[in-house]
């Protein structure tokens, strides 16, 4: 059971966790990652964030990432939620939840999904700082994080 959602409205961690936990009596581990909008970007405070994506393609790419995770680890279920539109500092922006029998699978798959989402999924962030809007630059650290999974790729 894998769920992928792209939405403007907020999500509820408790509800997402509950669904993963209840998937099966064999679930022994649930790992959740929640990304939050920090109140600064490159050392300057931000007023708001605007998230654009490529409808259709984003869902396809996220599905590919989740499929890869399911090939590489023994997962019982996963949920990926990404918000788009206008967000404020401290808002929730992204959620990845993974349920598995053993904890290593859930930990690694959740981290893998986030690393790949950051570098492959078609989202673009624009920040508003002091009334000025500019697009966020991609980070080398994210590419490094994603590429470390390549070496053990099947």
């Amino acid at each position, binding site marked *: 059971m894998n769920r992928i959602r792209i939405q403007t409205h907020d999500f509820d961690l408790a509800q997402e966790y509950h669904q993963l936990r209840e998937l099966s009596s064999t679930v022994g581990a649930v790992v959740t990652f929640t*990304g939050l909008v920090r109140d600064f970007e490159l050392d300057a405070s931000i007023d708001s964030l605007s*998230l*654009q*994506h*490529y409808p*259709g*393609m984003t869902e*396809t790419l996220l599905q590919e990432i989740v499929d890869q995770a399911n090939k590489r680890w023994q997962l019982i279920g996963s949920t990926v939620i*990404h918000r788009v539109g206008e967000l404020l500092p401290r808002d929730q*922006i*992204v959620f990845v939840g993974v349920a598995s029998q053993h904890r290593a699978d859930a930990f690694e798959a959740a981290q893998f999904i*986030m690393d790949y*989402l*950051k*570098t*492959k*999924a*078609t*989202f*673009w*962030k*624009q920040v508003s700082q002091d009334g000025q809007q500019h*697009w*966020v*630059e*991609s*980070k080398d650290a*994210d590419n490094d994080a994603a590429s470390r999974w390549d070496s053990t790729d099947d």
Partner: protein
Amino acid sequence: MESQEAGVQKLVTRTIALINLLFFGRLGDFSKDVPATIEASTPAEIRQRLTTDHPTLGKELSEPQVLVSVNQMIVSWDQPLADGSEVAFLPPVTGG
């Protein structure tokens, strides 16, 4: 445009297709007065033709990190295009 007639008539080496254009992220800022459709046979040709009227956009599209997709699949710049294709120009993603 110069070779459009020949291409359409003969379907010899390449087809000139009517393409729907999309620009994401920072590329959107440079493409506000770009038409929604264009005629071209490959993404590389789209880029080349856009550069003529929109040199700043053309320069942005030539950045090595910019990817191109056709009908929502990442492709190479010399991918042949079919009529009605959706071609999108994608700067490095920054979600999550």
